[in-house]
């Protein structure tokens, strides 16, 4: 099957791994990721203000293009996913906002018709974890892995609707699917500090440390994430266990990690 794909700015630069492995793994799983042509940066964070229009146009354009091909829009970066999904929701529910946005759109109005999936949702709901399990060639059996959701994947739940925001299992089920043992810990859905790393590195450090300590206390040997900024904050603030993108593990489990050497 073919889906539209929005990689996002960071995935073209600092987080190439997140992107490259996502594409490789998708091929093995029978999904073709068709990159949106001329996509623009989503802006990193969603402004909840109803009169902020210009900052959301790039997301709407991407959504509209996917819609014009009758494809769902798949994202892999947590931040892009959050922004695009919330923008889509605003287009569906806030008529006044939608009409302002549509003033900027060439050829035809958009009202939130496109479906937005995170790559993880695609694995769970479209491909199916059972299918993933069947295609695993390098199992991570015995490895204790902690999923780090951060804040953007799950919240606000009324819009994201990915999983139970307080007791999620989508990443844990992914960890099980690649043969490893998921480690559940309370801080997995707490914020790492995000962009505050620029302004107040101390606050980012405090939050990230709490996450790392909590994961380690629960017995984690490795942390996986879907967000480049989460990964940066955790590593920068002294994670002494590996923090990797979930797509990297997926590619390794499916036996296609080596193919990407040299990117």
């Amino acid at each position, binding site marked *: 099957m073919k889906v539209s794909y929005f990689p996002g700015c960071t995935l073209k630069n600092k987080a190439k791994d997140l992107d490259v492995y996502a594409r490789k793994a998708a091929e093995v799983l029978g999904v073709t990721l068709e990159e949106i042509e001329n996509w623009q940066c989503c802006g990193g964070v969603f402004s909840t203000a109803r009169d902020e229009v210009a900052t959301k146009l790039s997301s709407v354009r991407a959504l509209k293009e996917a819609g014009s091909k009758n494809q769902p829009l798949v994202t892999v970066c947590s931040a892009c996913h959050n922004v695009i999904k919330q923008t889509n929701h605003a287009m569906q529910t806030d008529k006044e906002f939608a009409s302002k946005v549509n003033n900027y759109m060439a050829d035809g109005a958009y009202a939130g018709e496109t479906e937005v999936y995170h790559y993880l949702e695609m694995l769970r709901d479209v491909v199916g974890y059972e299918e993933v399990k069947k295609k695993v060639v390098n199992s991570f059996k015995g490895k204790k892995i902690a999923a780090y959701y951060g804040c953007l994947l799950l919240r606000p739940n009324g819009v994201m609707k990915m999983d139970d925001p*307080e007791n999620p299992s989508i990443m844990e089920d992914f960890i099980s699917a690649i043969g490893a043992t998921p480690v559940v810990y309370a801080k997995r859905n707490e914020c790492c500090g995000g962009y505050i790393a620029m302004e107040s590195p101390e606050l980012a450090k405090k939050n990230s440390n709490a996450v790392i300590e909590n994961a380690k206390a629960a017995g984690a040997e490795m942390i996986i994430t879907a967000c480049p900024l989460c990964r940066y904050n955790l590593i920068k603030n002294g994670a002494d266990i590996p923090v990797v993108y979930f797509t990297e593990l997926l590619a390794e489990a499916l036996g296609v990690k080596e193919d990407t050497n040299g990117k």
Partner: protein
Amino acid sequence: MQRVGVFVCWCGSNIAGTVDVQAVSEALKNEPGVVFSTNYQYMCSQAGQDIIKDAIAEHKLTGIVVCSCSPRMHEATFRKTAAAAGLNPYMVEIANIREQCSWVHKDMLTGTEKAIILGKAAVAKVNLNAPLTPGESPVTKRALVIGGGIAGIQTALDIADAGFPVDIVEKKPTIGGKMAQLDKTFPTLDCAACILTPKMVDVAQNENIRIFSYSEVTEVKGFVGNFDVTIKKHARFVKEDICTGCGACTEKCPMKKVPNEFNLGMDNRSAIYIPFAQAVPKVATIDPNYCNMLKKGKCGLCAKVCAAGAIDYTQKDEYISEKYGAIVVATGFNPISMDKFDEFAYNQSKDVITSLEFERLTNAAGPTAGKLVRPSDGKHPHTIVFVQCVGSRCSACAEKGKEYCSKICCMYTAKHAMLTRDKYPDTEVYVFYIDVRTPGKNFDEFYRRAVEEYGVNYIKGMVGKVTPEGDKLKVQASDLIANKQLHIDADLVVLAAAIEPDKSARPLATMLTASMDTNDFFTEAHPKLRPVESPTAGVFLSGACQGPKDIPETVSQAGAAASKVIGLLAKDKLTGNPCVAHSNELMCNGCSSCERVCPYGAISYEDKEFRMPDRTTKIRRVAVVNPAVCQGCGACTVACPSGAMDLKGFASAQIIAEVDAICK
């Protein structure tokens, strides 16, 4: 032609404030059939009723229209007035010019205009009214109580004391309900078992009471005074009348790893079990989901050790049909699931527990024999955090919490905190609250004692996150008074989970055609004046099925429900509703359409002889309505293709006359 009198009520200024009552009574004077029209300040008062009575006599009225409040309020009053003056009470029609007119419209002009139209419709209807006489039906002098908690127990005992037989249906193997699981009761701190178990024994020994435990109601037919109820007795694989409750089987049973629901899964029981020592009836029950004999046909140990020979692996579910005059719903409550509140880490740590679990942990008959220890490692907790309002007063998400206040949590949390400090003075206790709500006799004094005498730390604020780390629970909370975020390393966190009606209530309400609110609590017939009756006649409410309440309130409501039941069962006959369907047999073609739609089976067919125009006779099949069974919904009147079926009091001609009057 009728001689109609019109009586317009001012209801003080309730009506007269927005409706020109003088104009209404003047306007209605000219309606067909109206021979008298007046208005008065309070028609429902004695003086007002006298005006009606006098007018009936003086003007030889054959029908009256009262323009006043809703018929749901005073229709019965004015019917009695009419009857007292010798007029058939069903010759009274009410025009609702208060609730549906003066109270919802703002200006005099529109209010008056509408009131006149509503009055005209009522006059048009009463012109077509015919005197009706209600039928009578007998009363089965037996009551059914559904639910065997403290509410059901008290209701049953009170009814039985008045000399009427009562059956209790309880879905669990024993009666006792939630109260049996509690440790102490607020605000007196007497032990729940000490006051409940004697009542349970009373129930067992009362010859007017039968207990159907491990049973549920599966079908309810009939109506007030004459309910036909089917009760399903689940197979317990033990002959109830033979088992002595000695407990030998439970000791020998090799399957001992069954989560014990009585202790909320905090310890295990055997596959054959007696829920607790004081269970009533004290007989064993085999859990078919775990018994090796029932699952695999291998074992049979319990049958071997049972000296009485009570074990019967072949027992089947049994259905019992019984007639009842009244039904009391006492289905109670449960704490809500904590699954959606995992910011408190209930699913992540055994040391995060609900308040009901805390009751079992401190109960001498509980899994720890009353020793307060952490479920994870059996160690004594030194710091305990209580979180109030978990899922209560939560309007953000219906899937998560409940919008209402669960009412009992403030008090039981104060009790838990106080008892903990009393028994374990080395324990630091924090209670996070939004508001402490303690209306009730000696309640606020109780809460203050917890703070002032026992040194419980009450903090206004909510807990935001609980993080299990190592053997601690890191509690992050706000202290709104100090304007601080607190971080407490706790050993035990206790969540005051919201309470919700038992899940069995919803299907039961459907069977009983009793109404429920959006939270699945049963609605009362009147929130203030008829708090223990359901709007469905013959169905009464007892305990938390009607709304959150504590034990004293439950017991008083249980007694009130019992007195209502006794009042009903003391009657030999009930006067029925005369507004029932009837068929014009000359028009009926015997097609069975009406019979098929009747929800009560009130319509049957008879072969009747009819004289034809040519002096021959012909036998035709025609519908006959049983007025004692018909409830007067009118479904048949619409189904009838020939127009033979009509409804007394709401005849097609009457409703059409109303439509015409409104659309004039």
